């Protein structure tokens, strides 16, 4: 009997929930929800275009300091090697990780985003630029990780368990 009452209460909740959702203007649409990730495709807002920076200029900027590096490659690639102090932030990162990285990015004057090649990190870079707004300069490193290494940027290796959210906190 108690189970029947519990089921009745749950059924009442379902009816009330769907009815209220139907009448409210800001109700939930039943289309599949896009998981909010670091690239924020669920936001629907236009991204901000970013300029590419040559690997040599990027390496100079890293040496000069006040730069935050974001590595948009896969976790395996990051673990094999990444630019010194770069945070691992691929598009698949959770929003919480992205927000923490952006909190750090707001403290620097330049954010450099790099991927494995010339263009693969562009989505990430544009999303970071959109979220940071015009006050922080965001650039995509042309040529990505290999080009940065070739330009003499310092590298280190290690798994993502030592980076990303752990480092950003």
């Amino acid at each position, binding site marked *: 009997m108690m189970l029947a009452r519990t089921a009745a209460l749950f059924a009442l909740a379902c009816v009330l*929930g*769907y009815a209220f959702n139907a009448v409210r203007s800001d109700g*939930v649409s039943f289309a599949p*929800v*896009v998981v*909010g990730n670091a690239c924020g495709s669920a936001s629907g807002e236009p991204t901000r275009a970013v300029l590419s920076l040559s690997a040599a200029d990027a390496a100079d900027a890293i040496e000069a300091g006040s730069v935050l590096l974001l590595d948009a490659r896969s976790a395996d690639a990051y673990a094999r090697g990444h630019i010194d102090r770069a945070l691992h932030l691929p598009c698949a990162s*959770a*929003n919480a990780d992205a927000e923490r990285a952006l909190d750090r990015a707001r403290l620097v004057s330049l954010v450099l985003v790099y991927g494995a090649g010339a263009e693969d990190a562009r989505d990430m870079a544009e999303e970071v630029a959109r979220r940071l707004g015009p006050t922080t300069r965001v650039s995509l490193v042309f040529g990505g990780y290999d080009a940065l290494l070739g330009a003499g940027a310092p590298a280190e290796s290690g798994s993502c368990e030592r980076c990303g*959210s752990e480092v950003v906190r």
Partner: protein
Amino acid sequence: MNRLFAPLNMALRLGLAALFLFAGLSKLAEPVGFAREIANYQFLPALAPHLAVVLPAAEIVAALGLLVPSSAYRRAAALLAAGLLASFSVAVISVVWRGVNIDCGCFGSGSGEISGLTVLRNVCLTAAALYLVFADRDEGSAASPPSDGLGDGVGAERARPG
């Protein structure tokens, strides 16, 4: 003996009701954001919009059910609350287990990250709700009507035919 536990039962009931009411209303205020929080769990994402509609309403119904005079419906509401909390516990344990770093969404947006403490809190709340399911039953089995002013006991319910 049952009278000794009446203040504890009342406190747990009111506490759970307040918590569920607050959680339900918080989620109801921002349904799209809550749907996204659910989808972030990466746990049956296709159900996220439906859960975002049903869960706040279920929490509010459970909260109000915990406050009604009829102990039969209070116990049913406590069981509903326990079921919800057990489901939430499974979800947060799964997130902690998989190492997914997301916000809890327990009280709508900005509820903070999921951690071991979130799991512990949910398990404790589930235990409290289950305790209420059985505590009300014991309370009602006393010969005299319950003195906490919350109405009929289970003994009275049992005496009814059907």
